[in-house]
């Protein structure tokens, strides 16, 4: 997709979301450009995962807009947003448990088959017109023909299958999972399941990768490996990455920009050093009394 230079890949513009009387997210702003590595932190129930769900189309924002590469995506389905280049992992691992590792990745590769109308043409149409029914019809036509290709086992279909398998194997190798190729996802150790989820997300050819607590449940060693890996992925796939994380060391270690949420409101945003010393953040995380003590200590120190 041809991108206007300087236009963010993912842009949340004063997004708010309300469930009944509960304001889960208030005036949330975020921009992710190519090569960004941003963090989203906050205490439990602060609205981090809600923010993710708004960005990926699970929830529709009550007010405000979300843009992906300049396309307004309010009200679009998660699979459509995924096709625009936003992939995610889940806080509580959501692998396809009874499928093998490679099949998990191959499921996400499905967007490759465009038998009648080419993908570029569809993308252009989707950007150009507001007639979604027309592009949806073309998608359906593509899919219909593709079913017949699968049923008749055409040479083109076989070639595509081989390409998909190769691509999936490549991704497994990147994530160091190739030796687990034919093992069922549920039999993988916890850390590998987390990595498989990232491999699966990468298979959708994302421009932005959203990681929801990728280090949850990992030991120190695994966390260190993960930090290296996330940085590598950003380079290798030229991604913008947004990480939700509880582990402060990890977030402070890799993120160049951190947004802090509390009760759905953005209480701080900036570089790691800036956020760490922000009194509001300290208060949110450690409580009011600690914040007061911290401030007093800082005052006496000065």
């Amino acid at each position, binding site marked *: 997709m041809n991108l206007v230079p300087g236009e963010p890949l993912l842009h949340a513009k004063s997004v708010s979301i309300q469930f009944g009387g509960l304001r889960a997210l208030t005036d949330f702003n975020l921009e992710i450009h190519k090569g960004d590595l941003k963090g989203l932190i906050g205490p439990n129930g602060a609205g981090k995962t809600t923010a993710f769900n708004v960005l*990926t189309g*699970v929830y529709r924002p009550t007010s405000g807009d979300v843009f992906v590469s300049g396309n307004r995506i309010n009200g679009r*389905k*998660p*699979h459509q947003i*995924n*096709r625009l280049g936003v*992939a*995610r992992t*889940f806080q509580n691992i*959501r*692998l*396809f*448990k*009874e*499928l*093998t590792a*490679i*099949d998990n990745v*191959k*499921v*996400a*590769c*499905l*967007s*490759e*088959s465009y038998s009648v109308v080419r993908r570029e043409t569809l993308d252009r149409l989707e950007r150009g017109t507001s007639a979604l029914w027309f592009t949806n019809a073309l*998608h*359906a036509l593509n*899919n219909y023909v*593709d*079913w017949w290709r*699968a*049923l*008749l*086992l*055409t*040479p083109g*279909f*076989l*070639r595509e*299958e081989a390409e*998909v*398998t190769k691509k999936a194997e490549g991704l497994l190798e990147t994530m160091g999972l190739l030796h687990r190729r*034919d093992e*069922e996802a549920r039999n993988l150790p916890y850390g590998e399941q987390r990595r498989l989820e990232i491999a*699966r*997300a990468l*298979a*959708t050819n994302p421009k932005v990768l959203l990681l929801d607590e990728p280090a949850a449940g990992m030991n120190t060693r695994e966390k260190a490996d993960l930090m290296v890996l996330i940085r590598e992925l950003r380079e290798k796939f030229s991604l913008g990455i947004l990480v939700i994380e509880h582990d402060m060391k990890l977030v402070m270690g890799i993120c160049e920009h951190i947004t802090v949420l509390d009760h759905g409101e953005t209480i701080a945003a900036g570089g790691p050093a800036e956020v760490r010393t922000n009194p509001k953040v300290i208060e949110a995380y450690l409580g009011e009394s600690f914040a007061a003590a911290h401030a007093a200590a800082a005052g006496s120190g000065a």
Partner: protein
Amino acid sequence: MESVAAPRFSGVPGWLRGPLPILLSLPILALAQWATAQAPFLVYIASIVGVNVILAVSLNIVNGMTGQFSIGHAGFMAVGAYIAGKFSLETKDVYLPFMQSVAASDQLMFVFALLLGGAVAAVFGFLVGLPSLRLKGDYLAIVTLGFGEIIRVIVQNTEMFGRALGLSGIPQRSSIFMVMFWVFLTILAARRIASSAHGRSLLAIREDEIAAEAMGVNTTAYKVRAFVISAFFAGVAGGLFAHFVGIINPGSFTFVKSMEIVVMIVAGGLGSTTGSIVAAVFLTLLPEALRSIFTQLGGGDQTLAQRVDQIRMPIYGMLLVALMLLRPQGLFGTKEIWDVAPKWLSRRRKGMR
């Protein structure tokens, strides 16, 4: 499981891999047709088995692969049976001159009737698939159950379809060749879907709908597609059924028939195509086998045979209970027979040492 388009026929050039199984099947089916020409009862039993296999394998696409629980499959079968049967009744005397012989013309009309029945059933599949966008689990099951009953009641009260008496005098154009050919096509389609990107999407929906949606699978569309394909083959099965029994009435397509098919796929293992086949064959033949065993035991004494015949169904039921206790995931679980068989063998080999 369904990982790679297996390199089993790797020596075959790409363009031939699609049609090859069909080309191979034709002479075998012709041979079967020739061999069973003198055995009408065998043909009848084989046809019943064939129809049940088609029903089980097609229902497995919705219940097993996609994980949607449909219990109205007899409804689709009824649509196919009535549409195809009515079509054949109306066009009984039509002769297509370009087909050279009356028999050949009849067979072509038969194929057309089957396709028509399947297509109309597929339309109904689309209509039933729509609620599956919003409903899950038990709620969807109730909708499909309701659909099956609605079809039966509508047919029962429609003059055109003979009300409760049903349709009779449908030309018996079915043959073992035609039934087994459709059995083969259904299985082939199910297997090829399972090993394609579309099948993987269906499996992904079964495993985790939210994750599938987030990975770019249009879950709503795929659920409806699964219903459409499943209904098409159920309709064809109904058409075949109508053309070998010759008489159909609403009583053939009750809730009991739907449950029979559900029992088959659950016993075979939800999601396993080969499991559905094995279970469908076994559970269709079992009552017949028990009947002939008891007749043997009775030593030709008809009254004893009849008396023992009454405990046939309890035995059938007990076997199912035993299966569910011993293997709650069904015969093969979600796997296929070739995934499971080597494991059994290797385990036994280890045990021997």
